[in-house]
């Protein structure tokens, strides 16, 4: 238990958005509260929406009792260029010679922000320090594992995506000391695609804040919601299948001749034709309380995305006792819905429309499903339990 755990995340902080980054911060706090010696090593940038601009001050500072060391970002690299800290590290160069990555992998890596100072600090850290890299595809996580594989754990936040097929990713997952999986489906995906020993891939799950209670009526009043409300919170782009969701909702309205309001919350801008504002409401970035209010206000929480490793928003919707409608193409959300018995899944428009018919016509059913979701979340997603599972994995593997 005396080992020092260092959470390494390219972006970290109170103003940082993004599922993996929010998870990194919450897990760091949970580990700290569980009695572990936790530090965070990160960069000065904020998040994916402002990936390379300095935002937080460099140097040592504290985040609710946790020491956060922020390293300066290095200058952007040329296409396919390797960071200086990697080129000067013989261990990394040996791995690169052995793995023979595709040119496309190096191009993608060079397009993301990195920090030579941070990678150098990892390479020269004392051997007793344990690193937990979040998430897997960013250069700092890859070069970090390559610099100190025996000390490295991954919270990969992985799903079926092009990064997962990279040769360097295969090396990274197979050489890290241990992997913490957010969901059953993510763990199965890793075991299926990589030669990892099952005992090295531990299902630790993630947690959510259980204290927030939403006020649905207040949200409906404040946003003038008059019709049955569907809700989604997250990036409003193709990565979450939001255009598909809007298309499905429009088709449902036209076919059933009944209005719905699709409320979309998120930090990124939403570009839709003006006429769609009749049924799509963009409420922008919501505070935690307002988001809980929105979950409580909705009739159905809809998640059309397929690239998830955990789906915080699904758990948050269940905490507010709302049923979910998820994309059958996403193993993680579909498995969670089946495990929790708290919603329906759709593979195409026909199933989407039929599911909405059933859910909107049966308020007792939605109450039952919402309650099942709430029970599931309170049993599985307590941060204190997650921290104990993560701590056991990091100290015992």
């Amino acid at each position: 238990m005396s080992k020092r755990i260092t959470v390494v995340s390219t972006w970290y902080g109170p103003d940082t958005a993004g599922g993996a980054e929010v998870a990194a911060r919450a897990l760091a706090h949970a580990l700290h509260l569980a009695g572990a010696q936790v530090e965070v090593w990160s960069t000065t940038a904020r998040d994916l929406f402002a990936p390379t601009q300095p935002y937080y001050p460099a140097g040592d500072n504290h985040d609710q009792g946790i020491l956060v060391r922020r390293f300066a970002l290095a200058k952007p690299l040329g296409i396919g260029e390797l960071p200086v800290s990697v080129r000067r590290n013989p261990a990394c160069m040996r791995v690169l010679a052995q793995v023979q990555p595709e040119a496309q992998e190096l191009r993608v890596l060079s397009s993301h922000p990195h920090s030579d100072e941070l990678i150098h600090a990892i390479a020269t850290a004392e051997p007793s320090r344990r690193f937990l890299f979040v998430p897997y595809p960013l250069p700092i996580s890859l070069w970090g594992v390559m610099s100190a594989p025996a000390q490295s754990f991954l919270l990969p936040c992985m799903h079926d995506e092009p990064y997962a097929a990279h040769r360097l990713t295969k090396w990274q997952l197979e050489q890290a000391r241990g992997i913490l999986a957010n969901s059953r489906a993510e763990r199965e995906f890793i075991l299926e695609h990589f030669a990892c020993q099952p005992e090295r891939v531990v299902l630790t799950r993630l947690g959510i804040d259980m204290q927030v209670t939403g006020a649905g009526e207040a949200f409906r009043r404040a946003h003038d919601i008059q019709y049955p409300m569907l809700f989604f919170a997250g990036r409003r782009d193709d990565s979450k299948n939001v255009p598909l969701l809007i298309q499905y909702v429009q088709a449902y309205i036209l076919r059933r001749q009944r209005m719905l309001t699709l409320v979309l919350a998120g930090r990124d801008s939403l570009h839709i034709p003006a006429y769609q504002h009749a049924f799509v409401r963009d409420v922008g970035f919501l505070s935690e309380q307002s988001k809980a209010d929105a979950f409580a206000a909705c009739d159905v929480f809809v998640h059309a995305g397929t690239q998830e490793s955990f789906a915080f928003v699904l758990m948050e919707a269940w905490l507010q006792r709302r049923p979910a409608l998820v994309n059958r193409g996403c193993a993680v959300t579909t498995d969670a819905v089946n495990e929790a018995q708290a919603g329906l899944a759709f593979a195409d428009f026909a199933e989407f429309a039929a599911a909405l018919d059933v859910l909107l016509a049966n308020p007792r059913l939605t109450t039952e499903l919402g309650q099942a979701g709430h029970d599931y979340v309170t049993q599985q997603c307590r941060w204190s339990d997650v921290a104990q599972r993560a701590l056991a994995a990091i100290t015992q593997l």
Partner: protein
Amino acid sequence: MTPPPDNTSIDVAAVIAELRHKLARPAQTPDQSAELERQALQEALHEMELTRVISAHLPLVGHGIVGRGIALAQKIIRRLLRWYINPIVEQQNAFNDATLRTLHVLLETFDEHIQQYPPANPPRPPHPTPSDITTLATAQHAQQLGAQQEAPLSPLSARLHALAQTRHRAATVLSAWPLPVRSPVDHLSNTVHRLQRLGLRWYINPIVEQLNASNRATNRAVTALVAYVQARLMRPLIHDIQQHDQHV
């Protein structure tokens, strides 16, 4: 006697929020909504007109004796390469012209059609789903039954969306694309090509920049036309459903 007002039952913050929200969102009739898209389309077509003609003969100006000497050399090189570049640019200009004319005619055709045959909602369908479902298993069964009766969605919308993304990606022409390395000899030839590219960039880059401006304008106009067509077709239908549901 009139009873005193019960202030405790009024949520002042909610009332103010509601008023602000209503003020921020002006009421729109179906025509007004399509008018926004029409205006955006006109602006996009105007921009397309402005960027339609690509020129291979932008002025070359040099300052001082050295600058004027360089400009003169560039003019000579340009004249020597005119047989090669100008026909390419002229072909592009012919295509740009035809594309702009097509969009105008397409717009006129659509407006004429929609005026003769305005979109109308079909009769309101009955609601076949039972409303006494309480268990997940029954719900899943009802969902499967309902899905079997549902006609599949036309793939055209998804294709339009995918094409918009392809257009967006393909709209930018690169004058300095990454040179491929297939064998060690390529390193040498790539170095020569890079030097050639560097030496001619004063000539090629302004043409590519004009191409990109034209591509962006065309992309914007096509996107605006799609949005306008969708608005004219969909907005009256959705407005009609909205009116009916508010009445109910």
